[in-house]
């Protein structure tokens, strides 16, 4: 298990992505899965950066664990900002035309669709969001 604690800012998304990618590449993760995970990081860490401590800046921890049988990665995002459960957000209507479309909720929806598991809990003043993906 490895952990990175870093200021939750949009500017740090790349550092988080690099941190996770390094560990996944070592385990021979396919480029396709790697990109799906990178998108999930952009959505989830990006959300924390934009909303958790707004307008202040606070820290977030990203934990990467690899589990066997089947080989999977579990990535946990932890912040102690405003309590927010993204899984409660209603799925967007993806049948609407361009004119009627609203963009809110698409990011978390994509993460739900591309990861094998996602869970949220609020515990000890922390938002704990966990995604699991077979690699």
């Amino acid at each position, binding site marked *: 298990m490895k952990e990175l604690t870093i200021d939750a800012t949009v500017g740090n998304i790349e550092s988080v992505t690099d941190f996770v990618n390094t560990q996944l590449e070592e385990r021979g993760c396919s480029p396709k899965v790697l990109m799906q995970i990178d998108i999930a990081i*952009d959505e989830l860490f990006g959300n924390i*950066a934009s909303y958790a401590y707004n307008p202040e800046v606070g820290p977030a921890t990203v934990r990467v664990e690899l589990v066997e049988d089947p080989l999977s990665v579990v990535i946990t995002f932890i912040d102690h900002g405003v309590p927010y459960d993204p899984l409660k957000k209603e799925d967007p209507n993806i*049948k*609407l035309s*361009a004119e009627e479309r609203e963009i809110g909720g698409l*990011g978390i929806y994509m993460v739900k669709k591309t990861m094998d598991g996602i869970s949220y809990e609020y515990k000890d003043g922390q938002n704990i969001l966990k995604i699991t993906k077979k690699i």
Partner: protein
Amino acid sequence: MEISKNAQGSSLEIAVKGRLDTTTAPLLEAELKRSIDKVTELYIDFAELEYLSSAGLRVLLAAQKVMNKQGKMVIRHVNETISEVFEITGFSEILTVE
């Protein structure tokens, strides 16, 4: 991310290289705002784009709405990951992807 443009009359091609995400999407948004004013055919080339997140979708949707009023917009050369993002989000129905 790198953006390159090629304009011919009222036709504009914009090629995007790298990742279109929360960090870089504002750059493409700014470029489109600057460039598509009198454009009637907009081609967006993703041949060298690795992936896009919802921040990128937001920019494409805004551009599509503008181009619906003044002409057409076509997205070219998407890879499997990008195609999957369009399918999952229903953007494959909104956008013209070649």
